[in-house]
């Protein structure tokens, strides 16, 4: 064997090991979680509203609703801010300022999620309790924390897709007598549409998968929420809270929760890929 073949083999094996780790984890989750779907019934798990593992009730519908609501809230808060921020960085911000902004946003991505959760618990939760009522531990608190946490994803990907637009689009728009904002709004944003949509979808994927930060501020009650001030539980926090002591069917139910989460995130990611590739 010559050196080339050897290095090829090494890279192949390393690449294979990363893929097989993914396959292993996925396989494990499905092997552990799927049997319960057959035992209890798919509908009873996905659409069941009662979660009482000790009594054999494994309905995770409130958690699905919880995940969707918190993520939706995070999207409503994070997307407008994130997209506007990327427009500002690309179109309005002087270079000196954006060189300050960009690392700051990167830093936001580097803060561990437990720190976000702790900060939320100390500031956002009491703020909501004192000003809006309720226990403070709530869907709103979770949405606010996640809304901030998805900003780096949304800002950086939207910024790149706006920045990569051919200069000719902007020149063409301005030459037609459009104002700067008209050029952004009616030419640049639509042209960057696929990149910005991908940014949003990836942000949503990040929000729906986040666990640590939201465990600390959501209150984690298993119930369908009636207001944004109610405490709720998400799919991720369900696993995070109970995995320490769950055994038997209960443990399998947590893996089943994982499967549902896995499928949702897979769908979101393939959607993002599809959009980004569509161009």
């Amino acid at each position: 064997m010559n050196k080339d073949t050897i290095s090829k083999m090494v890279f192949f094996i390393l690449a294979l090991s990363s893929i097989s780790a993914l396959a292993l984890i996925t396989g494990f989750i499905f092997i552990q979680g799927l049997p319960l779907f057959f035992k209890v019934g798919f509908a009873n798990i996905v659409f069941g509203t009662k979660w009482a593992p000790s009594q054999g009730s494994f309905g995770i519908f409130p958690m699905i609703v919880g995940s969707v609501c918190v993520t939706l809230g995070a999207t409503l808060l994070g997307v407008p801010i994130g997209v506007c921020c990327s427009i500002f960085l690309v179109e309005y911000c002087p270079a000196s300022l954006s060189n300050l902004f960009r690392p700051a946003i990167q830093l936001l991505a580097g803060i561990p999620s437990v720190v976000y959760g702790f900060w939320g618990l100390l500031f956002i939760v009491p703020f909501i309790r004192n000003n809006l009522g309720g226990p403070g531990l709530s869907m709103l608190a979770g949405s606010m924390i996640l809304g901030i946490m998805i900003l780096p994803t949304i800002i950086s990907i939207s910024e790149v897709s706006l920045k990569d637009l051919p200069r000719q689009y902007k020149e063409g728009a301005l030459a037609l007598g459009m104002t700067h904002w008209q050029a952004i709004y009616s030419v640049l944003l639509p042209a960057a549409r696929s990149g910005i949509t991908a940014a949003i979808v990836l942000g949503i994927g990040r929000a729906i998968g986040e666990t640590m930060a939201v465990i600390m501020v959501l209150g984690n009650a298993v119930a369908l929420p009636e207001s944004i001030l109610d405490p709720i539980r998400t799919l991720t926090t369900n696993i995070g809270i109970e995995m320490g002591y769950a055994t038997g069917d209960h443990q399998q139910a947590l893996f089943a929760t994982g499967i549902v989460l896995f499928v949702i995130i897979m769908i979101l990611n393939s959607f993002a890929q599809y959009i980004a590739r569509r161009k």
Partner: protein
Amino acid sequence: MDNPVQNYKLKTVGINLYYGDFHALRDISMEILECSITAIIGPSGCGKSSLLRTFNRMNDLIPNARIEGEAYIGNQPIYGSDSDAVQIRKKIGMVFQKPNLFPTSIYNNIAIGPKSQGIKNKGDLDGIVEKSLRQVALFDDLKDRLSEPGLSLSSEQQQRLCIARALAIEPEAILMDESCSALDPVSTLMIEDLMKKLAENYAIIIVTHNMEQAVRVSDMAAFMMIGDDRAGMLVEYSNTEDMFSNPKDERTEGYITGRFG
């Protein structure tokens, strides 16, 4: 320099343009005749595009560009303290070197300009789109394909569409910066015919490296050169026929006979 133009549409008076410390245009004064085609010719880097962009204030986009002197569209100052670049650009359409359609439908590419000026009525917009496409002789070919992406057209059709897009905002003058250089010879001739037709109603300025094209289409010709100090300057400006048959300046003669440039 004698000035043969009486009824001008555009005019520059003592324009000096700087990119940072670089003096790109030196003291350019010229008048552009209404309903005519003026060709700006000259070697690469002499400032033809820079001069063209001073008319619709596109140089404003370049961060360190600085301009001295004044230009006029009709009697209206282009750079005066109370003139607004956006208002100026509505009066002066521009067609670029490469077709730069927006990544949207044929219809939207044309309607987007009028829409930005507040025309919202669908019927009005339909009318503008049809009229603009007719002006560039595309309407019959494209009337059933208006919702298709503009980028699906051939480059000649795309360039026509860019012209239609510029016409849709009802400009008073049109600037074309080497607008045929990305086209094959047949398409070039077709666009040239279109220019001549448009010149019945608009003042058109073209920049071209193609001497035959300048002779074929233009009424007036301006020859620019890089001066000893690297700044672009206007060497000769006259009737195209006169310039090409009997250039007054030996540098012009050198350039058009292909001795340098």
